[in-house]
């Protein structure tokens, strides 16, 4: 980006919405993150005993408690989460006079409507083809959640669904920023959603040896950067934000949480599931995001890391972070997946919200379960208590990476109001 951005090109965050393993909305989620509360639980489904992994991070509040019964019937669980989060974000933004032609929706997902697919396959086998739901396809298609949110809000500037595994939620933010900068929309509702806690997905991840098997201590299972980490914990939920051009926000006197200053997107072309061992693609994404925002590494005071609690991934990211931020960096790092588990396509969106709130509230959430740091991790991780962030203009990074070699880094800046 050459030259300073105009207010029509600057993209600010004016609404937040989430439903996560630690809270059914943003205030309860943020309070839980600051308090270091884990959302990881022992599952009670009867299939659990068939798997080596018995733990996951289910949504704290079931969407059936937050939606009308018909909405629950007509949406895959991932769509239900997205609707809940989008409505909270939209209400929070308090936009009263929106031209739908200038409103876009970008909601990413890792696996889309997999629960609907599997439930209908069960129906097919048990009861026959007549019992496959007539709405099965519009419920299971990956763009279903985004499309339902657009229907709900009357968004007609375009509906998009980035699918880049665990980077999908962050990629949605980047796509939404581009929509506003290119003039396609004034406001974009952006986020990520995932609902994949099912025997098949758990078996597949477990067979990859990607999941923690610390079944006897669920709350201590997700432990990014700790020597004892043994994989991620599968979570579910959604995060959605309202992004708006600064000009549009200013014209209506909106409350502004922060600015999404830039994004860096790269790919590894190294392995379908394993990260580049030293995080080269991740480092390039972070550097690209810094360059795009026109700031130096030394301006970054906080990083919400991808840090899923896998042995290889955490070290690769930490090394990339140390390389990009440099030895003199004062950035403190939070790994909020230590509490939420890994929400796949929703992770980047929920962590964008955590990053935005960290800047807005000047407080970085803690990383729980980091008791014995890995010797190869040379970054300043916030442990135990939340940490106060400096006053004045500050900036943070939010990293998200996904199977397939996707790397997305976002730079979020504080906004004076």
């Amino acid at each position, binding site marked *: 980006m050459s030259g300073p951005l105009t207010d029509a090109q600057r993209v600010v965050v004016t609404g937040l919405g989430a439903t996560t393993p630690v809270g059914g909305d943003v205030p309860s989620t943020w309070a839980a993150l600051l308090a270091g509360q884990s959302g990881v639980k022992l599952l009670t489904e009867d299939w659990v005993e068939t798997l080596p992994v018995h733990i996951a991070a289910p949504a704290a509040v079931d969407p059936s408690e937050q939606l*009308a*019964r*018909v909405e629950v*019937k007509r949406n895959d669980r991932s769509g239900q989460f997205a609707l809940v989060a989008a409505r909270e974000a939209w209400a929070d933004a308090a936009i009263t006079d929106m031209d739908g032609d200038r409103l876009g929706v970008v909601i990413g997902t890792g696996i889309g409507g997999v629960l609907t697919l599997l439930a209908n396959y069960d129906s097919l086998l048990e009861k026959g083809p*007549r*019992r496959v*739901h*007539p*709405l099965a396809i519009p419920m299971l298609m990956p763009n279903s959640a985004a499309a339902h949110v657009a229907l709900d809000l009357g968004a007609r500037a375009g509906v998009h669904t980035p699918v880049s595994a665990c980077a999908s939620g962050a990629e949605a933010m980047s796509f939404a920023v581009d929509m506003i900068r290119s003039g396609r929309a004034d406001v974009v509702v952006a986020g990520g959603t995932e609902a994949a806690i099912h025997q098949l997905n758990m078996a597949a991840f477990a067979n990859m040896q990607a999941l923690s098997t610390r079944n006897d201590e669920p709350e201590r299972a997700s432990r990014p950067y700790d020597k004892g980490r043994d994989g991620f914990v599968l979570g579910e939920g959604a995060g959605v934000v309202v992004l708006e051009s600064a000009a549009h926000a200013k014209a209506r006197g909106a409350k502004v949480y922060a600015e999404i200053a830039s994004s860096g997107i790269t790919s590894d072309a190294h392995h379908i599931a394993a990260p580049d061992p030293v995080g080269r693609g991740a480092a390039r994404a972070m550097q690209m995001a810094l360059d795009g925002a026109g700031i130096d590494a030394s301006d970054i005071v906080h990083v919400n890391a991808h840090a899923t609690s896998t042995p290889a991934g955490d070290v690769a990211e930490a090394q990339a972070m140390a390389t990009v931020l440099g030895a003199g960096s004062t950035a403190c790092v939070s790994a909020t997946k230590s509490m939420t588990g890994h929400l796949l396509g929703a992770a980047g969106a929920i962590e964008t919200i955590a990053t935005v709130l960290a800047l807005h509230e000047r407080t970085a959430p803690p990383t729980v379960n980091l008791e014995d740091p890995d010797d190869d991790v040379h970054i300043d991780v916030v442990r135990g208590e939340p940490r106060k962030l400096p006053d004045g203009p500050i900036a943070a990074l939010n990293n998200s990476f996904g199977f397939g070699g996707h790397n997305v880094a976002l730079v979020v800046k504080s906004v004076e109001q």
Partner: protein
Amino acid sequence: MAASEQEILEGLAEIVNEETGIAAEDVQPDKSFTDDLDIDSLSMMTIVVNAEEKFGVRIPDDDVKGLSTVGDAVSYIAKASA
């Protein structure tokens, strides 16, 4: 024993409410599915499939097109389950 037309109407109203959110008491024999109840063709199919299971009947897709009112559906199911 086959269900009476009143029982079928009540059962159908329950399904319509469950699938579309329309109040069960609005589902009356003289109401048109499309014009009065605003039920689209996809919703109609979910109602039909649920009715088939509930009443143990089969309603071929070609016959669904002929069911324009709630009363048509009730009579069809009554006849098919007799």
